[in-house]
């Protein structure tokens, strides 16, 4: 990769690369253990319980102990499983989860053992796309787990997972576009650098909201946890998994949660940049302090995940798909359209912000009035259409309407079939439906 553009990246000594990779790995595992405990405690508080408080101070070691227990449990592999794929699936999930973190920045350039280096494993011109790509590989884990278990519920879970990832990845990718337009780059470190005066969450609020929604869909967390809906599919894709393999899915889910939170922080909340009142302090964005700001922002998102889980019921599957395809994706496209137009006006016609705002307001007003007029027209059309349909279905059934043999319209009844007449004769004292049928027969001249 071009070294000139990315200054410090790609120039680390080999031991620094290994050190960073190991530290990131360890940090992710520790964050996972912490998040499980944190989630259980927060959900408990929200449900008027206390939650795990026995193992270690305030129950902090509970998830570590649970992890040990999970790893040492007996492993059961179903007879009908496709063993090779069954083995690979959790490995794909967990590996992909760890890989995505390679491009997430935790802080600015610091000095580690006398070497100046950024607090980020690596970065390259398309690192946000890299995270998207790795996320889409990670989903293979879930889908293959569902398929290879050789069981019905996991298969349904895997199926849901494929449909979910296809629809939510589009909305997610589209929400990045506005950020790329503003940052002029797809590398994580440059995107953060572009948010120095003001975060993208403020200027690109719709993109931020769409990303936050689709990231919940992407991580299969409540209320979008359809692939593992325990009320419907037992455990979904991981129903047949036990012991360490199940633990790997568990780990992957929590790391994914941290990854999407970190990506949201990077793209919209200014990454490691200090939040407003703190940013007045001169050295807030230097040294090791930014790691703390980063961690707090990521925790904010994780708390949101937990809060959502404790609050919202699971969506029905068709509602969920409809929401993705008919709300999130069109809204994203419309928003990108607006952003692109605004950029062109600013860059090519050198509009000021004020001029842009007025032009935008005028355009929106025109659009609103236009759509209102169109709505009135289409409503009228719809009404006349419905009346026509109603008149048609009230008319007696004409089997050769328009010169072709046609089936009856809804509400019309096919006048005469020998079998129905026989059936009606055999039923003594018919119910309301058959009464209607006989009327229809009497009314129709053809019979």
């Amino acid at each position, binding site marked *: *990769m071009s070294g000139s553009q990315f200054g410090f990246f790609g120039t680390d000594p080999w031991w620094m690369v290994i050190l960073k990779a190991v530290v990131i790995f360890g940090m992710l595992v520790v964050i996972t253990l912490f998040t499980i405990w944190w989630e259980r405690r927060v959900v408990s508080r929200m449900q008027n319980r206390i939650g795990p408080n026995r193992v270690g101070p305030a129950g902090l070691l509970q998830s570590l102990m649970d992890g040990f227990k999970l790893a040492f449990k007996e492993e059961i592999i179903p007879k009908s499983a496709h063993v090779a794929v069954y083995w690979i699936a959790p490995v794909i999930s967990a590996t992909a989860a760890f890989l995505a973190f390679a491009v997430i920045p935790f802080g600015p350039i610091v000095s580690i053992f006398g070497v100046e280096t950024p607090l980020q494993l690596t970065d390259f011109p398309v690192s946000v796309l890299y995270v998207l790509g790795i996320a889409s590989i990670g989903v*293979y884990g879930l889908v293959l787990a*569902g398929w290879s278990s050789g069981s019905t519920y996991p298969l349904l879970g895997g199926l849901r997972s494929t449909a979910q990832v296809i629809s939510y990845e589009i909305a997610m990718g589209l929400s990045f576009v506005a950020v790329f337009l503003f940052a002029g780059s797809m590398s994580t470190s440059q995107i953060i650098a572009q948010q120095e005066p003001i975060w993208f969450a403020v200027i690109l609020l719709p993109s931020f909201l769409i990303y936050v929604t689709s990231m919940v869909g992407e991580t299969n967390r409540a209320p979008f946890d359809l692939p593992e809906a325990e009320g419907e599919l037992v455990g979904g894709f991981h129903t047949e998994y036990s012991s360490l393999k199940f633990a790997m899915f568990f780990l992957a889910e929590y790391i994914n949660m941290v990854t999407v939170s970190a990506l949201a922080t990077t793209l919209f909340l200014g990454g490691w940049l200090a939040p407003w009142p703190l940013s007045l302090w001169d050295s807030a964005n230097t040294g090791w302090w930014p790691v703390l700001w980063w961690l707090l922002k990521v925790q904010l998102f994780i708390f949101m995940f937990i809060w959502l889980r404790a609050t919202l019921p699971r969506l*029905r599957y068709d509602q969920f798909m409809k929401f993705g395809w008919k709300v999130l994706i069109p809204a994203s496209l419309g928003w990108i359209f607006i952003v692109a137009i605004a950029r062109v006006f600013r860059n090519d016609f050198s509009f000021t912000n004020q001029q842009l705002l007025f032009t935008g307001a005028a355009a929106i007003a025109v659009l609103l009035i236009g759509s209102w007029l169109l709505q009135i027209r289409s409503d009228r059309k719809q009404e006349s259409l419905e009346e026509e349909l109603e008149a048609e279905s009230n008319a007696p059934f004409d089997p050769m309407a328009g010169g072709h043999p046609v089936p009856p319209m809804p509400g019309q009844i096919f006048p005469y079939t020998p079998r129905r007449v026989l059936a009606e004769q055999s039923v003594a004292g018919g119910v309301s439906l058959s009464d209607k049928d006989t009327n229809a027969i009497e009314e129709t001249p053809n019979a």
Partner: protein
Amino acid sequence: MTIDGELVVFIICGGLTVIGALGMVLSRKAVHSALFIAMVMINLAILYVANSAPFLGMVQIIVYTGAVMMLFLFVLMVVGVDSSDSLIETIRGQRLFGILFGVALAVLLAGGIGTALTDKGDVGLDAANQEFGGNVEGIANLIFSDFLFAFQATAALLITAGLGAVILTHREAWKPKVTQKELSVARFMVGAGHPGNKPNPGVYARHNAVNTPAILPDGSLSLDSVPEPVRSRDDSLIIDHRVVSTVVELVEGEDQN
């Protein structure tokens, strides 16, 4: 030739690509084939990145591995996971023509790549990447200037194909769809039957076997609680009221003691 990083990457990923491609052709199960293609795609993407085309590599993973292969898997799972293709020729002479065209394509490719390798030295992408200040910028400049028409035409074609698929699968709705609300109102209408779950067998009964009908609060039996197959085999264990009263007597007798 010196051994550098790119060569190592090429040997590993190239080998895996060939294995994946062979596996895709040779495996019997459709899902295994799909997996092998995904492996080929990922390895190709790594090769692109190693050859200073990171954008192409990432888009390859997102579009082909993430979307296209995922759709494939989806369809495979819907159609039936264990269905394997029959090996009977349906079009006469298909195998012969297949081999013929396959060999022709191989010759063409070998010739093309051979001349490309011998006639021209390797230039690499570095100069092209530097021209507009980066790989992504370079691609953007080409797509939105020289290749704008081709790019837009491809987009229009894809949209048309998508629309065609939607129209082909579209069904006119004859009646308004029944909503969840209407369904649950209908559940509680008079004559709609039991609105909630039926009682479990063995509730308040002497026994919790599946063929023991639940006893309702007034002491009568609820035959609804016994599953239909058991009922139609006449296997339900109907408990005599006298037996129940005996039980009650026994329990009361115990209480008095």
